[in-house]
């Protein structure tokens, strides 16, 4: 039950819009030190002839919800892929928590607390929703093959399984998908898959979450519920970097915004600062920004 109190405490009243606006205007009101958790410096990456990334530089402050925007093909997903280690950059560095993590494999970045979700939900389709969540927690005793087999050791594995189940169950309730616990993940709707992927990522207790269009295909009421939850988690100290095409959403919910265009970071600032930059508008209107 300790785990459930951890995620159950969704105090919905605390999160009205006024509060969020205040926070957005003055991020330091939370009293947290504004040190960068993720530092990305001059990343480049090309695929054949295409320069997907061509100088991506930005910082993400711990405990903040930062938005990453840009037109289709700007290189947002590629930035996520390079940060999380799906492929190494051609040049440039990624630092996380003060350490150089450039080119580390995805499992290594993830085990340092830098966890990402995918633009196209990647649920484990032949496993139940519950199993999808229970895979995630780190360093489970039963991941050691012999412990799962030997009679003496298997007891400890099962004890931990009970804990992991409780945690997973609370997470399912938190995301309102507990009624799907025993459903095969492949049978879920697009929006439910997005929820599942976010829930699964959270099972890792990540320090920072990279979310690639988590609301794509999610209906508006579910979307606002998800946003509420993301903000709750942010208030508990989790850091988010969010790719999203809906400008209103970004302007309303993010404390800082990074704008990308043609493989570069154009502007970084508060939503107000970014909105006032003509370049951004041009980028979205398809203007040719050098």
């Amino acid at each position: 039950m300790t785990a459930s109190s951890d995620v159950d405490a969704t105090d919905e009243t605390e999160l009205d819009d006024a509060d969020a606006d205040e926070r957005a205007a003055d991020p330091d009101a939370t009293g947290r030190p504004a040190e960068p958790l993720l530092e990305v410096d001059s990343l480049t990456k090309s695929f054949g002839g295409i320069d997907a990334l061509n100088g991506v530089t930005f910082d993400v402050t711990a405990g903040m919800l930062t938005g990453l925007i840009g037109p289709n093909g700007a290189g947002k997903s590629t930035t996520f892929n390079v940060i999380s280690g799906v492929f190494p950059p051609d040049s440039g560095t990624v630092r996380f928590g003060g350490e150089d993590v450039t080119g580390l494999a995805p499992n290594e970045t993830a085990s340092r607390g830098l966890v990402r979700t995918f633009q196209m939900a990647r649920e484990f389709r032949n496993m139940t929703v519950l199993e999808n969540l229970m895979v995630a927690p780190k360093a489970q005793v039963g991941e050691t093959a012999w412990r799962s087999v030997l009679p003496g050791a298997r007891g400890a594995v099962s004890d931990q399984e009970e804990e992991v189940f409780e945690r997973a169950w609370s997470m399912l309730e938190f995301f309102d998908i507990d009624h799907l616990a025993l459903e095969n993940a492949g049978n879920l709707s697009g929006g439910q898959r997005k929820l599942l992927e976010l829930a699964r990522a959270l099972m890792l207790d990540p320090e920072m979450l990279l979310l690639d269009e988590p609301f794509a295909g999610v209906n508006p009421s579910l979307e606002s519920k998800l946003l509420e939850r993301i903000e709750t988690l942010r208030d508990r100290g989790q850091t988010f970097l969010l790719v999203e095409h809906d400008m209103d959403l970004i302007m309303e919910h993010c404390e800082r915004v990074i704008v990308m265009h043609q493989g570069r970071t154009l502007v970084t600032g508060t939503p107000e600062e970014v909105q006032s930059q003509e370049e951004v508008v041009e980028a979205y209107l398809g203007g040719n920004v050098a």
Partner: protein
Amino acid sequence: MSDDATAGGPVEARLPAWAADYWANDLVKIGATLAAVYAVYLVIGALLGYDLSGQLNSLRRLTFLIVLYSIAALVVNLHWGYSGLFNIGVVGFMATGVYTTTMLSRPLQGQNPTGTLPGLGLPFPVAVVGGVLAAAAVGYVAALPSLRLRDDYFAIVTLAFAEIIRITVKASELQEFTVFGVTLGTGGGRGIRTYPNPVDEFFAGPGQPVVEAVSALGVDGSLVAGWAFVLVLVVLLAGVYLLITRLAESPFGRVLKAIRDDEQATLGLAKDTASFKIRAFIVGCAVLGLLGIVWQGSQGYVSPSLFIPQLTFFIWIAVIVGGAGSNTGSIVGTILFVGVVYLGPDYLRRLVEEYVSLSGSVPTFPGAVGALAGGDPQGVLLYTLDQTSTLRVVLTGVFLVWLLRTNPDGLFGDRREIASSIDLEDRVERRRARGDADGQEGGGSE
């Protein structure tokens, strides 16, 4: 074991409710299928006029093959069904096991009265452990570089490894060689005598009275050792079943399942997927090593020709019939494979020979066609039945096409085996029951 029944699966759907209830139990599924195949073979035996010894021997051979193929099928299921590792080099690891054990256990030169190939003269149990470890080590070497490859390339590497091992033991250079003053060898293409079967030795020595007692009942005494060895193999199968089921129903197996579904996403959850795949592969290879030791090793003699890819493919067919991803399915599939496809043609030939008075033999296809053109269908029948091993392959094809048209995922392919060491369905039910009760008490406060 929290295997759950196939809700409305292909088999259940055709059973009355009471039978479907029993069928939900895994052991019942296996037992019922085995009983059905036994019954068919007893009827065939009766038609062929077998006496008690003949029937017992026919069932012994059937069980022997079912148990050994089942062990192999369970490993293929661990590799492919659970981990997505396409191992089509199964025989290579079996060969590694039996050849290593043989070379370690054969008597030293000079202490070898029969004059056959000498070995390292190690005690038999040590040699068995050595054989298992050698198979595991070869598995490690095969897996290490190739796990970075795509699935289909990995398959090619395993096949190549199996062939490399077969060709290596066949090499005349290794037939007999001396290192550090110790002479040993693989026997090359001529093969090598293995080791005495401890079960046979027991019934030839201290167990002799049992054999005599059975003989006194009018049953062939040699059946005692034969059946005793089959029982030993059944115990081994039970152990492998438990091992692989426990691996599957654990956090370890859960990660394997996740890798099979989406390796990139599993990496994203901080799992070192290569390490999981290598460990699963090695465990399977070790079991295959042991299988080679008790299977080919128990025949007293091995040669490279036993380890051709065809054996691997037969094992795969058993898994496909049962449905990859299910241990119970793998065993049921194996029972059907051995009963219908593997031994079926042989018994069919004997039945036809018994009841259709055929004379002579037509060894060539032109001969058969010629006879047919001359208005004599007997020639074609004789020719067909002469080709037992070809018939086996044809029958395999027909059987697979028929089965996979009705059950594309195999008999148990749609079955859900939840990967956890605790019964998650039960936990979910309890949580839901508790949630309902809370909801009523609290008057729907949430």
